[in-house]
């Protein structure tokens, strides 16, 4: 606010006649520069969202809430919430839970850290579809994994890892873990290593250093990482179709939206599914961020650096 006033005043002193309107209005013309950004957000995000939101209350037949009543009365539809959560929640917990100790162990710059970071970034850059295709070949009943295990005599018959829950779960780990790891690594390396060393001189063995120093300071980062990883996993679509059982265990909510839109051509119903999907994500994210507020949030260094 102070900056705005100063500019307006300075303008008044320089050319009192011409800049009066800006000074009187108390506005800073530099705000105009926000317009392109605002326009992009409104046209690409706010407008489609509002459009979809309103569309969901304009069903092809019946009253305004007809789509919502239909969603929650048809098992085919409302069961997708449970199936998606059953897929995304445990996998997010697993990914983030695994990322924390990995990040903790690799918090000091080393050749191991660089190597693992590089290896993990690769699946992220390849994208879900390519990873899913690769996993189809690798995990199929006559794929490399099963054949190797059978040749080694470890298995009698191929284990089923695709076209079911586990296929999707595995692909979500391949895609989601690197993401969670990279995020946790940056949070972990942001913590002053002297804190753990100070704790060590005060009698804390490594496990206590982790529990009393790293974990509390990582909590906010943990919450954010959890939310982002969860939202990604919840919106799973390509791998659920390619690697899962789209008619059964992995009939996720995005699939229901897709079917409504492009098989039934019922855009209103598809919007309804999307709105419900967003609401479920929002509830989980709000809950996690609410928990974050209980934790310490501030600098993760122990004094002047």
């Amino acid at each position, binding site marked *: 606010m102070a900056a705005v006033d100063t500019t307006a005043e300075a303008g008044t002193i320089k050319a009192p006649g011409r800049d009066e309107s800006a000074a009187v209005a108390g506005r800073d013309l530099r705000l105009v520069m926000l317009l392109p950004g605002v326009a992009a957000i409104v046209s690409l995000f706010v407008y489609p969202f509002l459009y979809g939101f309103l569309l969901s209350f304009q069903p092809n037949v019946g009253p305004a809430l007809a789509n919502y009543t239909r969603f929650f009365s048809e098992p085919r539809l409302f069961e997708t919430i449970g199936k998606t959560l059953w897929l995304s929640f445990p996998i997010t917990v697993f990914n983030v839970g695994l990322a924390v100790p990995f990040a903790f162990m690799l918090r000091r710059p080393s050749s191991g850290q660089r190597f693992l970071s590089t290896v993990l970034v690769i699946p992220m850059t390849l994208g879900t579809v390519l990873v899913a295709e690769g996993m189809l070949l690798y995990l199929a009943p006559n794929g490399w994994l099963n054949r190797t295990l059978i040749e080694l005599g470890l298995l009698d018959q191929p284990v089923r890892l695709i076209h079911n829950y586990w296929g999707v779960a595995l692909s979500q780990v391949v895609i989601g873990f690197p993401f969670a790891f990279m995020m946790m690594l940056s949070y972990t390396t942001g913590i*002053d290593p*002297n*804190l753990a*060393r*100070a*704790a*060590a*001189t*005060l*009698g*804390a*063995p490594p496990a*206590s250093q982790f529990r*009393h*120093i790293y974990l*509390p*300071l990582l909590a906010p980062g943990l919450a954010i990482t959890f939310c982002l990883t969860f939202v990604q996993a919840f919106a799973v679509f390509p791998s659920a179709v390619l690697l899962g059982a789209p008619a059964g265990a992995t009939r996720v909510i995005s699939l229901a939206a897709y079917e409504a839109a492009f098989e039934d051509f019922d855009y209103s119903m598809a919007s309804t599914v999307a709105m419900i999907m967003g609401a479920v994500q929002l509830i989980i994210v709000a809950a996690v961020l609410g928990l974050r507020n209980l*934790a*310490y949030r*501030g*600098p*993760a*260094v*122990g*004094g*002047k*650096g």
Partner: protein
Amino acid sequence: MFQTLELKSVTRTFGSHKALASLDLSIKAGEFVSLLGPSGCGKSTALNCLSGLLPLSSGEIWLDERRIDTLPPERRGFGMVFQNYALFPHMSVTKNIGFGLTMQKVPASEKVRRVRDALSLIKLQAHADKLPGQLSGGQQQRVAIARAIVIEPPLVLMDEPLSNLDATLRIEMREEILRIHQTLGLTTIYVTHDQDEALAMSDKIVVMKDGVMQQAGRPEELYSRPVNLDVALFMGYRNLLDVKPEAQAGEGSVTVGMGGVSLDATAMQAFNGEALIAAFKPDDVVLADTGLGATVESVIYGGRESIVKMRLDAGPVIHGRLKEAPAPGSHVHVRVPAENLLVYRKPPAAIGRH
């Protein structure tokens, strides 16, 4: 408690670089020992080896009859004060100070009492519930000291604890650290690059350079009898003159010549070459009827004494600190008492002042 801490050939290498070369040091309980030297001299490496944060490459550390260099830091129980304080940012002052006691599983009532005592020792009772981020630099440093001493460690290690504070606060905290050291009868090892700090606080100073201990002794010993030119240059300003040996009267006593004038001096090192350096402090310069002839170039008045810049007849410029300053431009004769004119071998490379 313990009697003696003994470092035996403590060595630490990083790759091919010897950060600390075979340090032998004996420290008695109750001493305040400073490790002094320029950055990169190995003083912090020595401290980290003591605390256990850095494993030794070779050597042993003994606390009386107990070998401790094989123990991890959490089992040595030495209190350490870090340069950047390293206070736990998510814990209140009380919790920071109590952390070591929690780790030692000290009963709650005793913990409360000891934390309260520590808080009153550092006079921060009013700030007990604040987070470190809400304290000033000096207050944070006091909390860091309290946190290190509340566990009643046999040894307190301090790594340049005052280097982040401003000049006034630094003097204040010096006294504060000495007061705590004396009140609790602690044994303190203090790393610093500031020789004033080391001189003012220590019972014993260890001067290091390039990973090698140069000299260890009482402050006055190091100040007036530095064993080599490096220590001499580190312990305050000294005039340096190129001189040639003329006669050696006996152990340590030598006559050197400069520009046709013979000077009685003290040899601090054995020598057999021709090139020597004579070092003396401005305070040791006295005016005399005979001696080195010099022309006064400038006088800077400084109250009780003046800094007098003189050009010797032989060429070089020296500084003297004199009570009665001669007038600029006048020709005088100066002398330095033999016991304060210290002679060293001239190093092959150029002499770098610290």
